[in-house]
């Protein structure tokens, strides 16, 4: 008796699900992780104040990792780059800004295909390559 209603009910439920959605989720990306968490694994501090040199090192590191640069701006301190891997685009933006009088903060965010990269390991790998090229330690930011 109940079985008879399962299919129609499911179909109606699916119809409702397919009909109502908001774009807020994919635009704001606020569901998965807290802003604080995100910033902490996407950022590192370096003991230098030479922004241009840091940006140049970011560019060199990205090229070492097989990225092709898309955009670079010294004034704003931003580099964007794309790597094609497994027929998907891995896109990355790296920004450099001063922190206090003796440090710079480097922040990276990435997307792979149509998904944000939310795996801290990927960022760790990037910062470890960057810190080798900078000859400076990449310090966690609280």
């Amino acid at each position, binding site marked *: 008796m109940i*079985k*008879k209603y*399962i*299919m129609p009910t*499911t179909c109606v439920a699916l119809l409702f699900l397919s009909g109502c959605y908001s774009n807020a989720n994919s635009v704001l990306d606020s569901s998965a992780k807290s802003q604080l968490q995100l910033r902490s694994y996407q950022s590192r501090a370096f003991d230098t104040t030479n922004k*241009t040199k840091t*940006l*140049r090192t970011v*560019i*060199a*590191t990205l*090229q*070492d*990792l*097989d990225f*092709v*640069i*898309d*955009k*670079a*701006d*010294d*004034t704003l301190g931003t*580099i964007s*780059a*794309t*790597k*094609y*891997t*497994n*027929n*998907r*685009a*891995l896109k990355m933006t790296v920004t450099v800004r001063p922190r206090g009088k003796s440090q710079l903060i480097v922040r990276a965010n*990435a997307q*792979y*295909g149509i*998904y944000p*990269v939310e*795996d801290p*390991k*990927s*960022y760790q*790998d*990037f910062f*470890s*390559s960057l810190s*080798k090229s900078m000859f400076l330690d990449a310090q966690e930011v609280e």
Partner: protein
Amino acid sequence: MHMKKFFILVLATGFLIGCQPAPAPKAMQSGPTSLKLRQLQSKKFDTLDEAVMLTASMEVLQDMGFMISEAESKLGVIVATKQRETDNRAQRVALIALSIFAGDGSLRGIEQSHNIRVSLVTIPDKSKKNTTVRINFQRQVFDMEGNMVKMESLNEPLLYQGFFSKLSKSVFLEAHEI
């Protein structure tokens, strides 16, 4: 019977929601290939004048038919792109014929054009009084129906040798203002 269908439906929906691909585990790691790539993609020039190297590089990219899409002289960066027919004309003709005579006449998957992107960077070294130029290429390939079929970086040594031989000539021309 209905229950079975229902479960399959739920399972399929679950799969659809669940598959979010992560980048390859080593995508952000530098390794031995990084060094090889760097050697292939870089060349040193005996000048500390970064502006001259950037101008010469820009000229060569224009010689090669590239459009400059981004340039930041303070960081020594030039980005350029071009669209071209792929170098597989004979293969393409064969594949079209095969599709017409032995297939469904579809042109899907037959490579026809590619968008080529290049980033070029100048790296001055004050202590050694030279400037390194590093360049790297990547491309998106489209089939005859306009679908993107491939995205890859281009790491053929011939490509880089060809570019640097052009650049060396261009630097010579620049330096002597011919």
